[in-house]
């Protein structure tokens, strides 16, 4: 990919040293990718081998082939799509609400300095609070099921989003703000044309963090109160000692979280372009 971009033109051919350097860069990349694949293959291979040779008990650790078989059987009876769909929906809804809500609160706090000062200690306390402690209260207040799970997901992400975005807004170069003022910009224009675009990199970082945190929130919520979803399958599987089910759900969670993170990385690449 990189070689394509920096293809030498006939007018200015690269020197041998430069070609060697480019080749080294390409080789480094191949080496890293190969090693990443090798680690994955080794984990799966050793896991399967140890389970097959009874070095570890498949009853407690399952095995890749059992996970695969479990996945196929769940695909065949169609139940897997319902569980994936529910968890994905809860995560995405929680992710969007927390990201947008947190950013909106940050905007409000940036806009009103006095309000920021007043709420500062409360935000610090809420941020330090282990959100899982609020689980029973959430169930009481919003009911069990999807609404409680989404609330848990939102609670876990929203404070972090607010703090990160507020810091990004506040840390904007004061000279740039003065420049906008010298061009007679009003407060809304300063925010819209300077503060907000200036915080884009921080926003993408927040999205990346929220990908992980929203999965944590959703699974925690499903542990507390659910009748479907991957978190529910993990709890249910462990209760009936079906480790294959637990492992299959965990692997699926890994894949979904990775896919969501990858989507954010693509967004970041597009933004940087």
């Amino acid at each position: 990919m990189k070689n394509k971009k920096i293809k030498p033109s006939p007018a200015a051919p690269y020197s041998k040293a430069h070609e060697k350097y480019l080749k080294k860069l390409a080789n480094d990349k191949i080496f890293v990718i190969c090693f990443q694949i090798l680690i994955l293959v080794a984990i799966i291979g050793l896991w399967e081998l140890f389970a097959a040779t009874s070095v570890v008990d498949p009853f407690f650790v399952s095995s890749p082939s059992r996970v695969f078989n479990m996945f196929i059987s769940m695909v065949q009876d169609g139940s897997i799509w319902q569980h994936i769909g529910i968890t994905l929906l809860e995560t995405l809804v929680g992710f969007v609400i927390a990201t947008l809500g947190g950013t909106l609160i940050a905007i409000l706090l940036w806009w009103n300095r006095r309000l920021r000062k007043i709420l500062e200690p409360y935000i610090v306390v809420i941020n330090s609070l282990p959100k899982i402690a609020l689980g029973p209260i959430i169930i009481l207040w919003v009911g069990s099921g999807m609404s409680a799970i989404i609330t848990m997901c939102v609670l876990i992400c929203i404070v972090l989003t607010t703090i990160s975005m507020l810091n990004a807004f506040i840390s904007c170069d004061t000279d740039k703000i003065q420049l906008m003022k010298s061009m007679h910009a009003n407060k809304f224009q300063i925010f819209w044309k300077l503060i907000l675009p200036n915080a884009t990199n921080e926003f993408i970082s927040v999205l990346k963090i929220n990908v992980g945190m929203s999965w944590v929130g959703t699974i925690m919520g499903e542990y507390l109160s659910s009748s479907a979803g991957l978190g529910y399958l993990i709890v249910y599987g462990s209760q009936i000692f079906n480790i294959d089910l637990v492992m299959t759900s965990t692997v699926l969670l890994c894949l979904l979280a990775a896919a969501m993170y990858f989507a954010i990385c693509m967004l970041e690449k597009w933004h940087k372009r």
Partner: protein
Amino acid sequence: MSTLLEFKDVNFFYQTKNAEIHALKDLSFCVDNQSFTSIVGPSGSGKTTILSLIAGLLNKSSGQILLNGKEIEPKNSQIGYMFQRDHLFEWRNIWQNVTLGIELTKPKDADKKKQFARDLLKKYDLYDFISSKPRALSGGMRQRVALIRTLVMQPTLLLLDEPFSALDFQTRLKVCDDVYQIIKSEQKTAILVTHDISEAISMSDKVIVVSSRPATVKHVQMLNLNGETPLSRREDPTFGSYFDLIWKKLTNEKQKD
């Protein structure tokens, strides 16, 4: 030459948690139309405060600041401000950076101003970069873009707050020449705040030396140097004597400080 800007016994205090700071004390000076005036003084003497007062970013505590004989208004379109660093917005391309002021103020003659922006970019060899992001430009080119962004609004008075301080010495001399030529050919009045005495002498018709805080005018030096550009003005035989004179005034202030 008629007077464009006049400071009459201007005082400015700013408040901190611990004290009230007297930044400017009975400051009086005037700036002629289409002239280039530099203000030099010790660090922290309040030079930037003077520019902020003119730009309406701060409000004076007492005294008068007159522009064309009238008390200066807080949002005055006749004034353009150029900061220490170019402060180009990295997420906007060069055209969007240059037309930022038009976007913000939405003037009635926006099309005319946009055409003026195009003309300036062409004139100063930046038109090929209008779709580029600022990171594609050199330090000198970025400063030229920053100046054009200020000139697009067609201000009468340009405030230059150490606009070359972030550049290396060679680029600084080149950009200094470019900026000087642009200001002169666009027939603008400019006030430059700088630490660099030679830069002040090479560009200005008048150098105002201010004291350490609270700033008052300690010395006003009119300059008469031959040369079309700041670089050529540095070759004038009297350049050195002007430098020595201003240096002495400034060192006295520093010693007091």
